[in-house]
């Protein structure tokens, strides 16, 4: 009994307090700034046991005035897009987007807009509300009203665009929409404005490029487009700007190089291109001969030079090349007189004693350092 009395007494007291101070005891949060005047008047918005209905909202916020006038009747700034969002909405749809008791700022009491709450007619007429938001670019100039063809109702991006939705006549006018996306390089400035010749509609890369379209110009204008692709080394700086002389149109490597194109210069400029290929050993370092003297143009090895074939360099003849080959430009020339053993007068005397007078070409008889041996 005592408990029942406590219950009844406290329930009555609490009920009276709740009715007297609903904003303190019952309000789940502060009202927006605009609703300050009804802070203590719950029934201004709430219908008992039916919660909020849009009827109460509309009694103050006339639908036709939203975006144009304040509740007090004062005019708002022009070009507000609020009017567009409220235009054509059903009378009872305020609570679909709006709520309260979430704080004093209006943004906090706006729920996400649900397009599903629109009438089917308005739902398909996106532009009736979103006209102010339609981009002015050429792409959107082709759009005919239903944003849903590319966009979702939750957010504008990411959007999908199906090129198939375009008219056949518009399909070749790629550049009318993609003007700003066209690269400024010479390649793209040279080709047609029909992007589809190389690109797919789903994404720009990978793209395919058919060089055959340039056959009319004989392929000689490669460098016009590929200037930045040309390596800075001496080889590429020496050759012509017709890349097709060595490279395929499908890919740069493997490439072929024909040395015969340099026959006019007798191959003497090998080193100007192959400097990095030259071995650092004594023979290659000292030699001034053309690479072609020993090597073929197809590959470095096997090389054709064998010194023993002409003269075997035994332990007495391990001399510097210049000792015998005084003309570093022509290794076919040699002399045996540049050492103390083989003075010209001494050699002449020895050969004349033997009755030999034609002794100028030493190697004809001496293929090594031995005096008596004439061939080995």
């Amino acid at each position, binding site marked *: 009994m005592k408990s029942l009395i406590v219950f009844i007494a406290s*329930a009555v007291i609490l009920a009276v307090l709740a009715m007297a101070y609903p904003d303190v005891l019952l309000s789940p949060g502060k009202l927006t700034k605009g609703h300050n005047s009804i802070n203590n008047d719950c029934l201004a918005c*709430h219908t008992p046991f039916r919660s909020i209905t849009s009827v109460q909202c509309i009694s103050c916020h006339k639908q036709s005035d939203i975006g144009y006038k304040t509740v007090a009747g004062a005019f708002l700034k022009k070009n507000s897009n609020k009017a567009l969002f409220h235009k054509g909405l059903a009378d009872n749809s305020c609570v679909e987007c709006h709520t309260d008791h979430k704080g004093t700022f209006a943004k906090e009491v706006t729920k996400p807009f649900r397009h599903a709450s629109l009438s089917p007619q308005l739902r398909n007429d996106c532009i009736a509300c979103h006209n102010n938001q339609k981009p002015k670019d050429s792409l959107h100039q082709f759009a005919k009203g239903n944003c849903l063809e590319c966009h979702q109702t939750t957010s504008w991006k990411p959007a999908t665009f199906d090129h198939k939705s375009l008219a056949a006549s518009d399909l070749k006018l790629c550049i009318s929409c993609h003007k700003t996306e066209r690269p400024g390089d010479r390649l793209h400035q040279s080709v047609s404005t029909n992007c589809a010749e190389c690109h797919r509609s789903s994404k720009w890369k990978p793209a395919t490029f058919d060089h055959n379209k340039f056959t009319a110009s004989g392929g000689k204008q490669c460098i016009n487009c590929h200037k930045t692709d040309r390596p800075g080394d001496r080889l590429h700086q020496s050759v012509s700007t017709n890349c097709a002389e060595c490279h395929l149109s499908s890919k740069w490597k493997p490439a072929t190089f024909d040395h015969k194109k340099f026959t006019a210069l007798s191959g003497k400029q090998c080193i100007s291109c192959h400097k990095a290929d030259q071995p650092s050993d004594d023979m290659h370092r000292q030699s001034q001969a053309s690479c072609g003297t020993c090597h073929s143009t197809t590959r470095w090895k096997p090389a054709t030079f064998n010194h023993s074939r002409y003269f075997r360099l035994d332990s007495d003849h391990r001399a510097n090349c210049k000792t015998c080959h005084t003309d570093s430009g022509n290794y076919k020339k040699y002399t045996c007189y540049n050492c103390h053993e083989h003075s010209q007068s001494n050699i002449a005397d020895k050969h004349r004693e033997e009755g030999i007078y034609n002794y100028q070409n030493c190697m004809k008889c001496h293929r090594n350092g031995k005096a008596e041996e004439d061939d080995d």
Partner: protein
Amino acid sequence: MWKSLFIQRTLPLSVSYLLLIIAGITLDYILHIGNLVWIGRYLGITGTVFLALSFGYSARKKKLITNGALKFFLKFHCYTGWIGTLMILVHSGIHFNAILPWLATTLMMVVTASGHIGQYLIKKLKEEIKLKMKQHGVNATVDDQLELQHYWDSLTVKTLDKWRSVHMPMVSLLIALTTVHILSIFFFWNWR
């Protein structure tokens, strides 16, 4: 040591109360990170149902329910009270700012703490009665005849009476706060 009052009675009941708070915070956190706060709103209903069921013990004691062992109803009272409190605690975590429901939540935690103390006192009383009945050679079930055995005048019986005189008014006040809260929700909110 293991038979001490602290280990056998105080510690389990303290752990039970702390576990209630930890479980409440954990579940509330899970609902928030899982974007499932709406579940918390409906836990208010199920929690209230559980708390209402826990009054079966009072109904049995007042003989509004005539069948069933009192021991069972006491256990049922403890478990449903604990689960109901946990649900209401999670329900409170949806962060509505109205003072009245928060007062109800606070009082609910006080009543639950008081319930744990009551549980401790009843267990202590049972042990005392068992001991005294044994000393006097009486054979009877302690749980079923608990009320009849109040003549065993002891300090614990007096303490239990005092505890009731505090616990029951707090329960009445909690019911009043809950009733006003529920009525205000029905009055202002629409269950759509």
